[in-house]
């Protein structure tokens, strides 16, 4: 019952919901970016945990490919969010 995919998947869900709550709260911008990244890590954990098929068998490679794509795209989204925020700061200060 308590298999490896289950405990890692539940941990991923906990991370995701906790980080989502922080991302939706009234905190500093960079903390919300951090929270979105941690939420992403939680989602990846659920993917890879369900792709784990036991110690002898090879893991399912399709979720691995999805998560690999996701990690790179998450970084570029973070970079875009930070650039947008800096640009907004600059125009707000120049009023």
């Amino acid at each position, binding site marked *: 019952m308590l298999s490896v995919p289950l405990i*890692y998947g539940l941990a991923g869900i*906990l991370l995701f919901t906790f980080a989502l709550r922080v991302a939706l709260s009234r905190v500093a911008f*960079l*903390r919300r970016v951090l929270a979105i990244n941690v939420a992403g890590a939680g989602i990846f954990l659920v993917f890879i945990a369900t792709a784990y*098929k036991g110690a002898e068998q090879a*893991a399912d490679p*399709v979720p691995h490919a999805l998560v690999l794509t996701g990690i*790179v795209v998450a970084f570029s989204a973070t970079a875009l969010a930070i650039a947008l925020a800096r*640009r907004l700061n600059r125009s707000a200060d120049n009023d």
Partner: protein
Amino acid sequence: METLIWNLFDVLLLTALLALGWSALSTSNLRKGIALFIAFGLVLSLIWARLKAPDIALAEAAIGTGLTGALLLAALRDEESAPAETSVQEPGNRFYAYLLMLVTIILTLILGWGLIDALMNRQHPGLAYDVFAQLDQSGVSNPVTAVLLNFRAYDTFLELAVLLAAVLGIRSLNITRQPYLKAGPVLSGLTVWLVPVLILMSAYLLWVGAHAPGGAFQAGAVLAAAGVLLRLSGYPAAGLPARLLIRRAFMIIGVLVFAMIGLGLMVLGRGFLDYPVAWSGSLILLIETAATLSIATILIMAFLAGESGEPEHQEKPSC
């Protein structure tokens, strides 16, 4: 006995992960939070290695932890030098906070029930069986590379396009860059030794991705790490080529090679990105090489535009 040790290991890893994740988001000091996030990423890489996902572990350590941590620290440095005066400081709405807590708890319960139900009642073999059945016709023997660059090559092609779109968006915001101080002897000594090693390691990861954990994304990330290291040591160009045309060429070459190979195969009468079996190994290597250059350039540029900088003068867009 052995399963007991493995269970203990799992419990330790998960406790460390959850504790680090919670404290990274709950400390008052943002710098501490980012440092804890980097440690969180390290434990996450260990978990990927434990769950038999070494490709993901490499990519997570390089991109998810290293590059993201460096980007966040650079953003923090900028925010400290030019604090946002316009942040809303009205007192938090109590009703909203309670509502958020309630929604979070309900969401956790629904997702948890979904996961337990899926794992216990709806076991499906998934696509793994088909992947392993066709693996020897895909041109590579690493199943993740086969899925990424052969069976689902279209998704990877679109992902490279998404990266390109993101970096074009970043560059279009016209954020000027302020370089770091030229490094002292210790840091420049480290850079002089590390950058060639990183370049060599990136080429190795690219080549070995066909039959062992590795591939284009990991190789591009290591190359981007070399560029970030150069930038932090005071070289403002961060290892990118000096000529504008070559820089632009590196940015687009991944998508370009992918599209040209796909269309070329269509001209030959096959489907888009439908490799003939005899050529798949070489085509995959060609695409991966172009993708490595592209990914490295795009990641470096995404980092550079996340740099701190007061707009002292409007410079010509250098992209």
